[in-house]
């Protein structure tokens, strides 16, 4: 088989492109904001990914699109759901049965993958942005900081403030009033992470989890959230390698299996 294989993951917040060789080796990637135009974002991301891999578009063999905006990727050969793509990417990394928690910009999902790499069960929460990247963006802003500092703050806290609301809008209001009452930003940040862990954790418990639990999606970079998930589930939760591009990675791997 000649050429290279591309995965395009069009999310609500960011668009990711990954390029792999015909043996599934990672060659290059790009992550850019999706913005208003899926066509523009995918073209741009593809260009950037090709540059990062020092390849040109002639050498592309097949393309798989995934994510919320997958049906708008006109140049894709096939569209596959993000559940299947995330599972494919995670299984390639881990090689055995695992539970994958994917927390993206606006939705979250839990996928159990069996020993042969097949999707066993899945649960999606895409009706509410509680506990997602959007939620964390808003909260970090309310705490007058960025996401990296937010995570450090939470990790440095010795106790947590109770956040009662999971709604992004109402939780922001709660945070502001806690600050006004003199609660430390560390306690608030930690409290928010615990809320997310509870929210996502209940989805994980519903699907059922096994020994290996990994987190993908942009939110996986937030160590405080991952650590809060570990304590909530009483099991080690680990960030998956290259978590944010995992969906695009899986899509690229699936592109290899498409008929020519």
């Amino acid at each position, binding site marked *: 088989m000649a050429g290279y294989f591309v995965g395009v993951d069009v999310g609500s917040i960011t668009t990711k492109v990954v390029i792999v060789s015909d043996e599934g080796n990672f060659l290059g990637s790009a992550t850019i904001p999706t913005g208003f135009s899926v066509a523009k974002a995918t073209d741009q991301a593809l260009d950037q990914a090709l540059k990062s891999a020092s390849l040109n578009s002639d050498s592309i063999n097949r393309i798989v699109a995934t994510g*919320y905006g997958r049906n708008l990727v006109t140049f894709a050969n096939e569209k596959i*759901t993000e*559940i*299947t793509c995330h599972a494919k990417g995670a299984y390639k990394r881990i090689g055995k049965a695992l539970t994958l928690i994917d927390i993206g910009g606006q939705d979250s999902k839990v996928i159990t993958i069996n020993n042969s790499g*097949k999707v066993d069960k*899945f649960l*999606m929460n*895409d*009706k509410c942005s509680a506990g997602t990247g959007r939620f964390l963006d808003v909260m970090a802003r309310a705490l007058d900081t960025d996401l990296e500092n937010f995570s450090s703050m939470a990790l440095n806290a010795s106790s947590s403030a109770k956040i009662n609301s999971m709604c992004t809008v109402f939780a922001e209001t709660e945070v502001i009033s806690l600050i006004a009452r003199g609660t430390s930003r560390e306690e608030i940040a930690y409290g928010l992470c615990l809320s997310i862990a509870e929210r996502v954790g209940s989805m994980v418990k519903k699907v059922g989890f096994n020994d290996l639990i990994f987190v993908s999606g942009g939110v996986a970079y937030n160590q405080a959230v991952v650590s809060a998930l570990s304590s909530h589930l009483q099991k080690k939760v680990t960030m998956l390698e290259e978590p944010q591009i995992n969906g695009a990675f899986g899509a690229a791997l699936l592109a290899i299996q498409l008929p020519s």
Partner: protein
Amino acid sequence: MANDNRSMWAELGLNMEKHDALLGILGQAYPEIYHKQNNRPKSMTYFDFVISEIHGLRVKELLDHKEKGGKVFGTFCLYVPDEIINALNGVSIGLCAGTEFSVPDAETVLPRNLCSLIKSFYGFKFGKICPYFEVADIVIGETTCDGKTKTYEELAELHPVYVLEIPHRKNEDTFKLWRTEIDKFVAKAEQITGEKLTLEKLREAIKLNNNKRIALQKLNSLRWNNPIPISGKDALLINQIAFYDDPIRFTESVNKLVDEVQDRVTQKQGVFPDNTVRLITSGTPYAIPNWKLHHVIESNGYAVVAEESCVGSRYFSELVDENAETLESLLDNIARRYFNIHCACFTPNDERLDDIVDLYKKSGAKGVINNTLSFCTPYLVEANRVKKRMDAESIPILNIESDYGMGDVEQLTTRIQAFVESM
């Protein structure tokens, strides 16, 4: 013809502006969902016609029927015994309950956190946008679920309602209760119609309804062939129309379609490519004009080959036993047949799990999509048992929950696609 309809609707007291808007939406949705299908059986033109006349011809027929002294009974549920209504020269009409359009009106009275089907039917009456409601001499309700039970109290303020008491368990004692309800219903229906129930008339009515069920059984089993000769959407439409079309004409039309579809099977003519992924749906019903789930499934290139639902197997899978020599025993047989419907409002309801497994195997499906309306407590809790049973039988199952709104079409699509990808 159009003007005849308009004056008829105005005379019935409909809110003309809202009603026009409703018909406008339906007029756009139906061609989009139905006419774009390929290679539909020619006999579907009758059913397209029924939809084009959805608030026209049939309403006029009912008005003519009433002019001749007949009565119209509005219903919402499979537990209402059509045979008794028909035997007393009554017409049984399954009332409108399938659109989001009437829900906002309902939400001014009913809580938002309530089944869409219930809100929809209440909104139809409250908003005065259903001519069938206005033509119905009485509406028959039933104590199936909490939502319906309490909503009938509200509906009774707007329209005459008679509520059947449905027990929640199935044993000889509750059967006696149900049998008594049937007697009470006969008395009430006789009072409303001014007719007397006789053995002959009841026997005829049983044959009428059994014939309809037999025609539907034939049609629905033909869907299991390969290639699939008729779409799930078309079959669903017919199952829905069964609730309110004239029984004799409907049965004739279905039998005509059955012949055509049988020919297709013989000639290996299908509406989907070979090896299209076949799915069955189960769960809460999709009242007309709710075609959302089937449309999402079939627009993605999969086919629905059966429904374990009130708009599917639960409607037609069992007949009333015609063999009885007395009126009392015929009524016993009717009571038995209706008592045996496997709805989640009964506890336990394990027979429904058997039904789903059975239907899955007979239809050659690859998976089950168990679809429950939001806030439908009985079916939502039962979804857990459905999953456990399907897992035990190694039958792929997807549990989804939705309401009438169109806002979650993308989410449903993703779940269904992911489900099929995982098979």
